[in-house]
């Protein structure tokens, strides 16, 4: 079973997306912050007084609930794509540098930025979706689905 609530994948996608939107809204309503995961992590790497603890607790909340959910629903945490450890290393580096230069990722630009109707975020979201489509096409079509 690949779902938590009932067995309709689309229904679960909408419930999950709604929770992501609500968590992002609450972080803005209470703390006045954009819920951009890349930005939260990057900011925590260079601690500033009064701008550090909320980052750490957000990251801890994400990691700890993941530990619990992975125990309960291991099938929702499968990594079954055919990738070498080198591919993960290169991917991690690209994700870190890329989100750093773009000031955001799927959450900061894709959800919060697009939700604020920011042209900047819409364009950046299109740029990472497009390059993602191209690299997946290259891997699946030219490299036989593994890298």
């Amino acid at each position: 079973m690949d779902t938590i609530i009932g067995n309709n994948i689309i229904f679960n996608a909408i419930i999950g997306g709604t929770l992501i939107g609500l968590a992002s809204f609450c972080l803005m309503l209470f703390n006045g912050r954009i819920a951009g995961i890349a930005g939260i992590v990057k900011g925590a790497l260079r601690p500033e007084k009064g701008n550090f603890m909320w980052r750490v607790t957000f990251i801890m909340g994400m990691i700890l609930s993941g530990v619990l959910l992975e125990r309960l629903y291991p099938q929702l945490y499968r990594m079954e794509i055919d990738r070498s450890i080198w591919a993960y290393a290169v991917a991690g580096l690209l994700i870190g540098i890329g989100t750093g230069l773009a000031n955001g990722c799927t959450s900061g630009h894709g959800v919060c930025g697009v939700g604020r109707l920011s042209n900047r975020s819409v364009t950046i979201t299109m740029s990472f979706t497009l390059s993602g489509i191209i690299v997946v096409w290259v891997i699946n079509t030219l490299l036989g689905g593994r890298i």
Partner: protein
Amino acid sequence: MIKQAVVSFICGVVFTLGLTIAGMTQPAKIVGFLDIFGNWDFTLVFVMASAVGVYFISFQSIIKRNKPLVAPKFLIPTRTDLDFRSIFGGILFGLGWGISGLCPGPILSSLGKGTTPIIVVMLFMLIGMFISSRIDQLSNK
């Protein structure tokens, strides 16, 4: 400070719960979404549409407020310009997203698995962020 930290923790917990219910902690679903010329998996479209929809609607109530509930002020990005650096960064991020089927959110959510791939991707993401911080420092001089 303490209130902000507690709110953040709860938001982090709910964020991972949302990603997990949505199926976004499975890299195969992300790669499947990007595979528009192959066996396209459109789950992510519904995840993004509902997350963006909820944020868009609820954000209207933020605009009317003077300040957040437990912090001194709203920190909302004001930049509207499009520079080469941001788009180039987006392109690099997309490559990493497509190769691994992971982005920063699901990386944190999945870190508890403790398997080699997720540890490696997290470690190299942190190195990448550190490098981009150095680029920030150098370009500001």
